[in-house]
């Protein structure tokens, strides 16, 4: 579904930054891919490029064989609105709206009728176990509940591809487990996912892990064993890449 070829990104300025130099990988339809790497390795830049929120300095990203660089602005917007669902570490919920209304925003943008949209939202909320919180304001609920709302918002228009930037970065252990169970369940229905994470626990839910370092993919793991054993392999790969305790931290310093 996704093919990334020789991707690079440079941010010019007083101090030139080059988070990505030469990234190559493929993501098949229905795959759940984790992107790992130390801080500053370009994970978030990669997510921004995949989401067409930023433009690559060189290289290409092919989505279903079409180069995203050829997208016109309206096509990019439609791509994000229809094909893509994005989950953020900081949830990025709109604090002027209630949780339910936050989930409905993508349907408002696609112009779906209110009644249909409401039914879909309520169904999804039940699945995410936030159906009794829909009238709450964002600052009235816990981090886990906020993240589940953000997941609901990313899923409500049934996208084919989910991009998640540290989806469990701000959550505790229980909330992380719940969120990852939900994502794994969705992946089982055939939804493709790319998850940026520091957490080997989260990566162990995926069937394909990319390790980024110094702006390129250093190694890749494919899962063909139970999750617990795959978790050990992820830890070993991180150690081989020179990972230390800080890099394994689930909470990214802000």
């Amino acid at each position, binding site marked *: 579904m996704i093919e990334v070829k020789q991707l690079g990104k440079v941010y010019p300025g007083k101090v030139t930054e080059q988070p990505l130099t030469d990234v190559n990988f493929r993501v098949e339809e229905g795959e759940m891919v984790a992107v790992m790497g130390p801080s500053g390795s370009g994970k978030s830049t990669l997510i921004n490029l995949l989401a067409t929120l930023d433009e690559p300095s060189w290289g290409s990203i092919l989505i279903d064989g079409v180069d995203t660089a050829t997208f016109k602005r309206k096509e990019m917007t439609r791509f994000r609105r229809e094909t893509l669902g994005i989950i*953020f570490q900081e949830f990025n*919920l709109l*604090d*002027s709206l209630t949780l339910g209304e936050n989930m409905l925003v993508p349907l*408002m943008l696609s112009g779906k009728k209110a009644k249909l949209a*409401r039914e879909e939202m309520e169904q999804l909320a039940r699945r995410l176990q936030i159906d009794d919180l829909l009238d709450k304001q964002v*600052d009235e609920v816990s981090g886990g509940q906020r993240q589940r709302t953000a997941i609901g918002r990313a899923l409500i228009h049934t996208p084919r591809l989910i991009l998640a930037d540290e989806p469990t970065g701000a959550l505790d252990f229980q909330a992380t487990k719940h969120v990852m169970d939900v994502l794994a369940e969705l992946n089982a229905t055939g939804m493709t996912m790319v998850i940026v994470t520091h957490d080997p626990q989260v990566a162990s839910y995926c069937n394909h892990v990319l390790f980024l370092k110094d702006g390129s993919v250093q190694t890749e793991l494919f899962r063909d064993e139970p999750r617990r054993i795959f978790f050990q392999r992820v830890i070993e790969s991180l150690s081989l890449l020179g990972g230390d305790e800080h890099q394994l931290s689930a909470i990214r310093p802000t």
Partner: protein
Amino acid sequence: MSINYLQYALRNIRRYQRLYYGYALTIIIAMTIVTSYWNLLTNGSFQNVAKILSQLNQVIEMTILFVFIAELIILFFSILFIYSTTYTMLEHRKNDLRTMRTLGSGLSHFLKYFLIEVLIVGGLAITAGMILGNVLTKMLLLSVVKIMFLPPIEFELSFYAILALIGGAFLVLLIATVLAIYRFRPDRPVRSRSLFRRRVWILTQVLALLLLIYGYVLAFVRMYGFYMLFPLVIFIGSFFICRYILPWLIQLYRPCRLSLRKLIVSEIANQLRTNSTLIALGTILTSCALTAVGLVFLFQLIGLDLSSQNQFGLVYYEESAQPTKRLKDIKQTMTDAFPDRYQQDIEVKAEGKRIFLPISAYNKMMRQLHLEERTANGRQSFFVPARPVQLEENTPTMKKAEQAMKQEGFKLLSPSSHDLVFGYNYQIETIFVVSDAVFPTLKQPVRQIVVFDTPAYHDYGTRDWKQWMKIVRNIQSAAKLDEKQPVPYQLINETEDEIDGIRIVRLVTFVVILLTIWLFVINASFLHVWMQMTAEQEQKRMKTLFALGFGSRNIRRYLLMKYGAVLLIPYLISVFHAFLLFQVVVTQAGLEMKPFLNLAVFWISIVTVGYFLSVLPIWLRYPRHLFRKSSESSMYPTPNSRV
């Protein structure tokens, strides 16, 4: 539960209401002033009375000119204010907009919900402004009648005028908002400034600097050209002073040990550098206020200078050969008011706005006024200027009239050059004296003029303005001057320049006071929006200072001094530029600076008081609020940190 664009816009208005306070307040005040000016311009009764009373036409011309300039200034600053506030609000909501972008919101979606938001707030502010504007108009008319010695004026509302005003207001709102949105473009990726744009920016700055230096040179050698460059000089000057000169000077301050004073000074430099454009805008606003108030003083001088001892007279023109009741009334009033003064009935013939006067009637009038008589034989004719200045003018109407006279076979002699002032309005535009032999042969219909010779108020024996104006009002009342009637038409031949001079001064003062108030309000609104924007960042700084061990007293001092400097520096720069303008004006008028220094100090003091009153609430409230918020327990800024 559902959400649509309208609901989303309403929620956002509630969420960002603090940012919208200043925005709405400024639009309300702008609309109030614009509505009242607009009502004056489109009020038929006001126009009618102003035209009738001011046969010199200066007051109405000045009214239109000043109101027009004031409206232009308000229009310019409104666009600038809405544009920059909208841009600031967009910056403030960057995170929300980015989230919406990732959710698939394109420019069209963004325009939908953001424009709904702006139209709701702007629309309410415009409506409120219009209602207040109509109230203000009513009060203005009452005051104008009083201060300009006019008869009562009806308050009229024209449907089309209101429609044009609403249309114009919404157009301004939309243009400024769309410009800000276009600059911000929330739907496009963040791009760094290209090399080409950087070079263009450097080149622009170099050219601006050269222009500024040239402007300052013109100011110091007191050349006329400074007037043209003044608007640019205040903007560019403030920008460079804040961005480069003051921060550079502040860098020179290097105390032996690090102290709170050094911290304050560095912070001031930082604020000036990073907010140079905003401060430059504030400076322009203050400079405009200073210039506007300065203009009042200038007109005060000119207005007093206009005083003369000309004669007060009345010319009554009627488009019929038969005397009417109104003519009888006015004759009786004039006889009662001025029993010993001369009156003369004159038969004239009129074609459109061209009046034919027989030479005998003209000479009789001249004899009475002890002026030189003239002769006109056969088809000889000469032009009588409606006012002396008409001799130097050559308007299309006059050209047309002269051409018509030539076509009719008249030989035009030199115009009469006495200083009499005849009627000057849309009924009598040109007067031609023809010979007595030719007059009866003219086919034009007969009309009548009655000329009443009246004394100047000094000659009349009263020095009391009120008593004098009582007489004028009686005449106006008898002539029913406030009623709109195309014919018969009458003129107060008011050659009392002093009245016009005083009217102009008072009118300009009125316009300027309103404009100055608005300029200060918009300045305060700019500052309010800026402070809302920087609140969270400021809180972080405060927390750091607390963590470093600074005491409460020091932090209070730090806040007061820092914001005091940021609020006052634009004002000081404005005073500097306004003073440059003042000395050029005085020198250009061929006057000495010294006698005017007191006046300049008084003028600057008035504006200083206004400026302080406008920024004082911000200066006191903002540091106090920041201090309170920063003293709270959390290490991080509280979400509701805005003032």
